[in-house]
């Protein structure tokens, strides 16, 4: 087995966002993350990341462009030798911001849309932003930075997948990521409304397959079948604490962006210890690293270093125990719970992602 080696850091700069997408994987208690790290701390973290051999820095959130010091952070990451990627919904990407980010060394921008049409897109986002996003797409595509268009698919928009691809084609997109919703954070809360029907998922897969053939050499399409409709779980994060770490807006270091939901683990903070110390020795990272922690059926399974037991967060959300086999696996004793979860309903309403005001608390 390869030794764990951190390759990527996801910097969740803020959980503030002007959109209210019901499929967001951010935690429900967004208001508990308002005490954001300052620029100096983020820069220290990025330099520590480069020092421990990490090569990619992803800036996300929430909406990372809401941080006024974003350009400074991207510049610091680039200077430290990190590949920089901005994951944004694109509503604050003015020309000046874009040019400053690119001058600071930004290599890749990933812009998400909610749907191919304004009517559906704005309904899902909970606000009128569709036109702005497409304006941003055009301006990013014209600049010296790589661009990926992303659309999270769920019950309400998956049938528009053909139109998403056609729209991407019209805008000259070379890389398109069609991501089936994963059920963490707000998406888990809204799972009844978001869960696609099996026929929808199968139809989408067929559309992608023929589009890939037609667009070969012009557009690369990423589409991963959701694990709750398959037999085996996803190799979440390529294994817990193996190549990837996340830093939350207030400095906690997580092996997976959804891991804060696991209440049985104590996560550590970059305000108290260095990133390398946390990666190498923190109990939360050690808990499910490698294969020694695995119970049956993982322990004796030939796939244990293929899917690494699946997703710890999904295991916790569905069973209450982060240390069991991911219920998405057909061999899991809890697999019936995934089967029951598949029953979405077209009539269910979702709750928009919102940061509770202090008055509501």
């Amino acid at each position, binding site marked *: 087995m390869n030794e764990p080696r951190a*390759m990527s850091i996801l910097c969740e700069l803020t959980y503030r966002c002007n959109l209210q997408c019901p499929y967001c994987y951010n935690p429900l208690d967004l208001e508990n993350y308002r005490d954001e790290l300052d620029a100096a701390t983020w820069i220290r973290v990025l330099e520590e990341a480069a020092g421990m*051999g990490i*090569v*990619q820095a992803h800036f996300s959130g929430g909406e990372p462009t809401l941080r006024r010091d974003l350009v400074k952070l991207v510049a610091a990451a680039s200077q430290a*030798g990190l*590949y920089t*990627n901005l994951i944004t919904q694109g509503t604050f990407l003015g020309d000046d911001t874009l040019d400053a980010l690119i001058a600071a060394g930004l*290599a*890749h921008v*990933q812009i998400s849309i909610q749907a191919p049409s304004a009517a559906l897109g704005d309904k899902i986002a909970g606000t009128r932003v569709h036109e702005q996003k497409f304006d941003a797409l055009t301006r990013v595509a014209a600049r*010296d*930075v*790589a*661009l*990926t268009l992303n659309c999270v698919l769920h019950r309400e928009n998956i049938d528009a997948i053909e139109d998403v691809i056609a729209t991407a084609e019209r805008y000259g997109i*070379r*890389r398109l*990521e069609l991501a089936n919703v994963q059920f963490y954070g707000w998406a888990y809360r809204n799972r009844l409304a978001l869960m696609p029907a099996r026929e929808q998922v199968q139809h989408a897969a067929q559309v992608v397959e023929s589009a890939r053939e037609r667009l070969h*050499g012009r557009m*690369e399409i*990423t589409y991963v079948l959701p694990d709750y409709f398959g037999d085996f779980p996803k190799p979440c994060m390529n294994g817990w604490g193996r190549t990837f770490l996340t830093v939350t807006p207030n400095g906690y270091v997580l092996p997976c962006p959804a891991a804060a939901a696991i209440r049985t683990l104590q996560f550590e903070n970059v305000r108290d210890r260095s990133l390398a110390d946390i990666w190498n020795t923190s109990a939360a990272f050690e808990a499910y690293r490698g294969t020694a922690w695995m119970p049956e059926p993982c322990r004796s399974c030939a796939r244990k270093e293929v899917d690494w037991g699946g997703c710890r967060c999904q295991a916790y959300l569905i069973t209450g125990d982060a240390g069991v086999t991911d219920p998405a696996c057909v061999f899991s004793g809890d697999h019936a719970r995934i089967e029951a979860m598949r029953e979405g309903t077209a009539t269910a309403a979702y709750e928009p992602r919102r940061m509770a005001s202090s008055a509501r608390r």
Partner: protein
Amino acid sequence: MSDRPSFAKGVRFRTASDGSALLLVPEGALTLNGSAAAALELVDGTRTLDDIAAALVDQFDVTQEDARRDVSELFSRLAQRQFVLL
């Protein structure tokens, strides 16, 4: 082979502190072997594939013919994946 390869948008060549070389691309990283790293290190939009092959002959114990073939294969593979422009 007079093509002058350059990196596509968002593609970066990096050497790590332990000497290993990577091609960093949107959403991924390719680990490079010694000769691929030596070739990609020379990509600057002005050198031709011939220039790059000639440098490999000097650096590694290979014939000019083999170097040209390897370089041509490497770059056409990377071009197909849209990581380099020829």
